[in-house]
Structure formats: structure tokens, C-alpha cells
């Protein structure tokens, strides 16, 4: 489903970014980068009030003609950005949420590994496998 998945650190540098190999990857990198602005906008708009699951999921950040970009932010300001194909109209909001939840769970598993230093690139094979499963689902 997703054509590109990215994990952005708090300081806005990528911890993990993976695109479907068929596409021009640079384009996706650029899209993710520009979407960071929108994410920041949404975060600041939320305010510092209660942060629950709903607010972790930012929803559709912005649509382009070909793609839709969804965002999700964790409590530690780690952002997940997902780019999906616009032609895939079967994707519902709930599905996107569940995908983000899976991403978040895998990310916490990566963090649990004591050999992982926060801020490093994510090289966990389990994480890779999970992202692959997400990307291959529909393709």
C-alpha cells in the first residue's frame, strides 16, 4: 500500500526511509521532507494539551495528484510519514491508522534493543520486514 515509509527523528533528520523500489526514490525523499513542515504546523497547532492516540495520528497531511501523504507523531516527537498511492482509493483512514500503529510498535521494539542508540539509523531486520510487509501488501 504504502509506496514510501519514513521515520524522522525529533531533530528532523531521517532515521529510516524506504521507498518502493519501482519509483523514483528521490522524489519520495523530497515529498517526505516537505511534509515535515506540515507536520510541524499540525504539532504546534495542537498545543501542549493532552496527547492521546488520536492526536498522535495526524491524518492526511496533504494530497498531491498522485500521492497522499499521511503523518503520525509520537510523544517523543519522532515522526512517521507515509506516502500512499492516490489511485488506491480502497485505503481507508482506519487502515492507515493501523499501519501507523504497527509502525509505532515496531519502532518501540527497536528502541527496546539496548544496542540501539537513539538517533542511529534503524537497521533492525525485524523493522525492515514489517515495513516490507506494509509496502508489499497492495502492490
Amino acid at each position, binding site marked *: 500500500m504504502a509506496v514510501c515509509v519514513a521515520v524522522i527523528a525529533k531533530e528532523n533528520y531521517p532515521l529510516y526511509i524506504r521507498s518502493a523500489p519501482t519509483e523514483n526514490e528521490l522524489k519520495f525523499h523530497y515529498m517526505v521532507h516537505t511534509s515535515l513542515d506540515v507536520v510541524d504546523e499540525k504539532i504546534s497547532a495542537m498545543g501542549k494539551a493532552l496527547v492521546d492516540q488520536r492526536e498522535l495520528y495526524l491524518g492526511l497531511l496533504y494530497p498531491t495528484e498522485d500521492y497522499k501523504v499521511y503523518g503520525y507523531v509520537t510523544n517523543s516527537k519522532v515522526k512517521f510519514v507515509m506516502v500512499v498511492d492516490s489511485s488506491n482509493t480502497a485505503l481507508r483512514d482506519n487502515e492507515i491508522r493501523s499501519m501507523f500503529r504497527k509502525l509505532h510498535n515496531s519502532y518501540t521494539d527497536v528502541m527496546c*534493543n*539496548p544496542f540501539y542508540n537513539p538517533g542511529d539509523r534503524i537497521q533492525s531486520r525485524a523493522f525492515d520486514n514489517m515495513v516490507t510487509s506494509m509496502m508489499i501488501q497492495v502492490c
Partner: protein
Amino acid sequence: MEAAAGGGCGSGPPPLLLSEGEQQCYSELFARCAGAAGGGPGPVPPDATRVAPGTATAAAGPVADLFRASQLPAETLHQITELCGAKRVGYFGPTQFYIALKLIAAAQSGLPVRIESIKCELPLPRFMMSKNDGEIRFGNPAELHGTKAQIPYLTTEKNSFKRTDDEDKQETQSPTMSPLASPPSSPPHYQRVPLSHGYSKLRSSTEQMHPAPYEARQPLVQPEGPSSGGSGSKPLRHQASLIRSFSVERELQDSSSSYPDEPWRITAEQREYYVNQFRSLQPDPSSFISGSVAKNFFTKSKLSIPELSYIWELSDADCDGALTLPEFCAAFHLIVARKNGYPLPEGLPPTLQPDYLQAAFPKPKRECALYDSYSESLPANQQPRDLNRMEKASVKDMADFPVPTQDVTGDDKQALKSTTNEALPKDVSEEPATPKDSNSLKARPRSRSYSSTSIEEAMKRGEDPPTPPPRPQKTHSRASSLDLNKVFQPSMPATKSGLLPPPPALPPRPCPSQSEQVSEAELLPQLNRAPSQTAESSPAKKDTPYSQPPSKPIRRKLRPENQTTENQEPPTTVSGPAPVATVKPHPTVQKQSSKQKKAIQTAIRKNKEANAVLARLNSELQQQLKEVHQERIALENQLEQLRPVTVL
């Protein structure tokens, strides 16, 4: 093919039916034999005309070698050759070859060599490999001569040899690797490991590997069919090294199954070892080790961080950032395997799954408790054995573990030498603290360590020592300085151990301090006697192997000296095991003894000087004491004289 060949042959034996696996196997063998010599004449030099031009024949040389490799007696081979018709026709055509192979299989299975035998379902014949490369994969998937067995390769082999349901040990390893003997009674459950699993399958063949007796595999012993996908030489070699190191380390453990059956299967000994390590980090076996603690621990194994990270991923099944006992064992096992060269698996092998480990070894929790009490009660007894094992194990290869070990010992000696060179008596006050700690640190590792791997030594430092024997009373007499008392006190507990560690194998600093304490303890009784003696005793003291160093650094130097002197003369206070313990390491580590001799000699010189100094000091103090006594007497006399005057 057989029917046609049989028909073409005419008066041959009855057509034999080969299964697919057999067919493939035999055709391969035949191709090898034929190809090896370019299809020459058969074993019986026939007329060239008899050989049909188009028929491929197996050359005599390779065929004979092959038959010999089957390890059947010569008469049986003759019989087989006769029966298969080669003698009759004069060459080894395909039919004859296949029949011969079938007969070989029959003979190896124990069936009589008859034509009827070939009608039965027989396993593939097994051949002991010789050095020829051409004999690789002789019908036995196990023949992986010197080639590294990669999983993909093996999986293809597995596919080709499908008839194997019994996944048995791999026999017929090339003699270049250490051939591994499989006992006839292989535990059946090991044979039933499902084929689907990658490594564990292949490894199941390498079960029951004996480090000590490396005998040639006897195919006759194995009536079962060979397992598919033969284990490569590489895993076997590494397995052998792994086993060697483990078996050496675990001499203390008496277990019937001392050898890992496969890289991903934990033996009882390994299990105990891991459990002990676990308990060193976390005393309660049922709770878990936190991530940071485990990280420090595993980092000592000197694997790269990404690899450690991956191992953690594999072993922490519940991804909670902490390791329970089975998870810890799995992680440790993976690390050990990796250090021995096994590539890490893609997924956690089933034998390392936490639930499997939990089920397979429910006892260790109880055993741990028992072992704990056992170890605590017998620290001394285990120490020499542990040390010996550590020594021996240090010689073996455990990846790069021994290297750091050696480095540490080397560094340690340097440190010792430098400290002894200082020879500052003023440091004595500081010393009592460190010897106590080091003593406590060291004693425990002794009782627990099973290998000389640096990971263990490094990790052992954190272990608590067994309770030292009760301290003997401070039998210090009129010692001239309090420092000596303080210094000699901590040495008392160590004396009860009565063992001096062999110098070369001592990895960390605590070792020497313990030995020093032993020497100090021995010195103490002498010191007690010394003050009461006059200066004449000092020369006698010099003769004794133990000098009385005024400072800690010099005492440290005594360690090698004491040991060599002990080796030379029977120690006075050290018990029997000590010389045994000290003698044992010498043959193993002789390189360091020469260095030590020089060190010892300089130490002897210095100690003698110190001895002289102390003796002089002693005599001077005695003199002073006498003078003071005399003064006191004089004063008392005066007082008495004056008294009658004052008293009225």
C-alpha cells in the same frame, strides 16, 4: 534406465528398481567414476573390442577406490563385483555399477551379498571419503570435502535427495577435517528434526561429536540412510572447535552428552554455564536482566554492535528490553556460535526459542540453587581445577577471546613489575582495601569460571566471591608497625585456600593479589616468629623461600617467585594440591616462565635486600628496646633510693 541397460546387457542380473534418490545418486557416482578416468576399461582389463563404443563405463581406478571407500572387507567387494556382473562382462557398465552400489548398500546394512538383496529398499551406500576431490558427494550428501557448505547449496542437495526421512548424522567426513564419530545409539529424537528448518537440519547431522576421540566414521555402524544436504566441512570444523572449547571448559561437569548436537542446540553443560553467567548478573533466575546490564555484558564479547543488536533482536522474543533466563541463554548461545564463526541465522532457531528452552531445561533453576550452595561450600577445591581448565582452555581457540586474555595477562605482569620497582612502603596503608576486594572478586570467578575466554574473565570480575574461610586470629606479635598487621590480615582468608594460582593463566589483577595474600599469609607466621628472634635469625630468614616484604608492591612480585620456589622445593605451608596446580600449568605455558624467571630473580634480589633492611631495623629496634628497659630499671632504682628519703 536399469531395465534397458539390463536388457541390453542380456544375461545380467535381474533388473533392479532404484528409487529416485538412488537413481540420482548412482548416476552421479557413475558419472564421476566414468568421468574421472575418461571412461577407461573396466576393472578386469578386457579386450578393447568388448567395450561397446557408445557405452559409458566406469574406470577401474575410481571404481575400485569407491568400493574401497565403502569400507567393506575385500572379500565382500570381490563378491559384489562378481555378482554385479562386471567380472563377467569385463567392465563396469551402468548396470553393473548400479548393482554393485546396491550390493554395497546391502552389505553396509548388514544384509548378505546376494542378488536378492538388491530387490529390497535399501539406503544409499556410504563411502568413506579419501582425498580425491573427485569423490566429493559420492552419493552421500555428506561429502563436502573442503567446500564450505552454504545453506542454499545444501538446500538444493536436500531437494535432490528426497528419500531421506531419517535425518541422521552426517557420516563420512573428509579426513582433512576431523572425522567425527557418531555413536551407534544416536538419540532418536535428534534424528527427527524436520527437514524444513535450515541450519538445525544440517546441524542435526553433526550431533555427537567427540572432541577427544576423533575416529573415522564407520559407515557400517549407520544402517540408517544418510541425511540429506550433508553438513559442510565448515560447520563441522567450527563445531569441532566449539565443542573442543566447551568440552575443555566443562571438565568439571560430568555429563553424558557433553557435545552440542548442532550449533543451535544448547547442551546441558552450556546451559549450566549460561545459567551461571545469568546469575552473576542477576541473582534471581526467574527474573530478568535489564537491557543495559545485558548490553555491557555482551559487549565484552567483542562482537560488533550491529551483530549484537541483531542477536538481541533474535533472542528477545517478547521485545521487552530485558532478557529472561531462556532468552539470555539463547542470546549467549548465539554469541558463542557467532564467535566460533557460524553465521547468524535469519530467524531464531527452534531449539533456541524461549519456550523450548524453558521446557527442555526446567531443572536448571533447581540445579542453580544446588550449584550455588555447592560452589559456595567448595570454593577452594574448584579453584585449582578451574584454574587448570582455564589454562588449558586458554590454549584452545575460542575466537579472539584468548587473545585479550593473553593481553590482559601481559599487561598485568607489566603492571606488577612497575609496581614492584617502586617499592614504596608507604603504600601499605592503601593496600589492605584493594587486596580484600580483589580477593573477593577473584575467588568467585575461580569457582565459577569454566573457560578462559576473556568474556568470562571480564564478566567474572563482577561476581561475588564465596565466603572466605574464617580469618585466623591476629597473631601478630610485637610488630614494629601497624601497617604490617593491616597488610597481613587480608591475606589470612586466602591462606586457607592453600593454592597458588599458576602465573601464566591469571587474567586479571585480582589473581596476583590473591596469590600475594597467600604468600603474605605464609610470611605472617614467620614474621610472628621473627620479632622474637634476634638478628641472627635474619640470615636464616633469607634462606626461606618467602621474604618479608615491607610493601605491597614487592609482595606482588613474590607471586611468581613463590610459585617457582614452590615448584623447586616442596612448599612448607601450602598443601598438596598446590604443587600439582603449579606444576600443571608449567608444561602448558612455558613461554612465560622464562620471562618470569628473570622477574623472579630480580624479585629475589629485591626481597633479599628488603629482608636485610628489615632485619637491621629489627635489630636496631631490639637494641632500643633494651636500652629503654635499662633506663627504666635505672630510673626505678633511683626512685627507690629517693623514696626512703622522702618518706618519713
